[in-house]
């Protein structure tokens, strides 16, 4: 279970210096017209803008490319199935199936939109460290329970991972080698069951410890969230970008 770290959130770029709330609001402003875009030009504009934004966030290129590849594994399926099922002018035939021009155009539109949204999320949300994200969402008025869930899930994923590895190591130390047989499946089932029980117990102990320190169902954030000029400028730019995408979509 690698990749529980959040390397993209550790930067000092222009984007990282924005208030996390502004980044989230900017994402909402930006992603709505991207999601609703019906024209290739609007979607392309979205992609270009998102790429510019990502460039400002200066993430490690290799990491972004790897994640882009994962996302586009999905869009590759769109390129296979959408043109084969959409009606229209045939580009070529695959046996009884026609690969249509209209279908291909739709697949292209979806690919552009998906990548634009993904780049924007990478630039704006992946750049927020999870604890900050929880505080920001709470400050934006999202239900507190959801924010707690997010914070605690992030915090305890590591602990559960470590617990799992410890159990697995101890099983290995006693000669366990996974094979395709009943013993292996039973061992994994017990391991997962034990992990569940232990996590449950731990959750109870943690809750008790929180009660002992006066927890009353509300998390207070220590982080000082403050809107600054840069945030206002950024939100203005996001609004303009959003308007531009809508206008370009209308004009087409």
């Amino acid at each position, binding site marked *: 279970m690698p990749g529980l770290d959040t390397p993209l959130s550790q930067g000092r770029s222009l984007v990282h210096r924005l208030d996390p709330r502004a980044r989230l609001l900017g994402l909402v402003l930006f992603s709505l017209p991207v999601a609703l875009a019906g024209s290739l030009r609007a979607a392309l504009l979205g992609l270009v803008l998102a790429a510019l934004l990502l460039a400002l966030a200066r993430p490690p290129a290799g990491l972004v490319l790897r994640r882009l590849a994962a996302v586009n594994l999905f869009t590759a399926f769109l390129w296979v199935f959408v043109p084969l099922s959409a009606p229209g002018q045939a580009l070529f035939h695959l046996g009884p199936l026609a690969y249509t021009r209209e279908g291909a155009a739709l697949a292209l539109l979806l690919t552009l939109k998906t990548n634009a949204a993904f780049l924007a999320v990478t630039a704006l949300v992946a750049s927020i*460290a*999870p*604890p900050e994200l929880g505080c920001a969402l709470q400050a934006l008025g999202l239900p507190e329970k959801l924010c707690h869930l997010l*914070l*605690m899930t992030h*915090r*305890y994923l*590591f*602990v559960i991972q470590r617990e799992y590895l410890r159990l697995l190591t101890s099983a290995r130390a006693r000669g366990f080698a996974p094979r395709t047989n009943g013993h292996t499946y039973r061992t994994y089932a017990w391991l997962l069951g034990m992990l569940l029980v232990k996590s449950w117990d*731990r959750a109870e*102990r*943690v809750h*008790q*410890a*929180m*009660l*002992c*320190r*006066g*927890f*009353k169902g509300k998390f*207070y*954030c*220590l982080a*000082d969230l403050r809107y600054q000029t840069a945030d206002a400028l950024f939100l203005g730019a996001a609004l303009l970008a959003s308007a531009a995408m809508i206008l370009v979509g209308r004009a087409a």
Partner: protein
Amino acid sequence: MSAAPLIEVKGLVCGYPGRNPVLRGLDLALRPGQRAGLVGPNGCGKTTLLFAIMGLLQPQAGEIRLFGTTMQGPKDFAEARLRLGFLFQHADDQLFSPTVLDDVAFGPLNQGLSRRDARKRAEETLDLLGLADFAQRTPYRLSGGEQKLVALATILAMRPEVLILDEPTTGLDLATKARIVELLNGLDLAILAVSHEPDFLSQITASLFSLRDGRLRESAVAPHAHVHVHAEGDLPHSHDD
């Protein structure tokens, strides 16, 4: 008679469903400034007693008075907990925030301090414990000893009137133990400490309760470290039983 007890337990019966109660009519009183050790074999109910005092377990019978008030329900305990500092056996369970500073500020924030005051309180406490460099570290990546000290910081930051410690030195190296002893002795607080380490108890407490058969008895002899020639010499004991 000295001042009214901070913690007073009368006739406490407490246990877990489907089993005989571990505590069977237990009495306890901890007075201001009193530093008492609590000893007894594994499974005799020491942690159960501490959990009952903190209101984390519902007793079957008996009375718990904290700071002179009889505890009637969760609300009373919630109030009293803000004045009691409970150090859990596993520091791992006590630390859950993304950074050490957040964790130490958690209690003060719950006590109603403003963010600025809570942060200041947390920084002061970390300073006091020599942990100032740890403020931005992640609690679960600390060593066991460091975690224990941070856990202690999280409760000291609440400025409690009583410290309740559940095996505070188990599994720690000598240097960390010595540091905890030094810290505790530098505080003007009542302490109730569970421990299996007579040396540690002799250094921080002046009296001793032993839990046996679901009841407490106060030892006539203060805990003391000394060389023994008999078999149980390294176990907590008094010479009158």
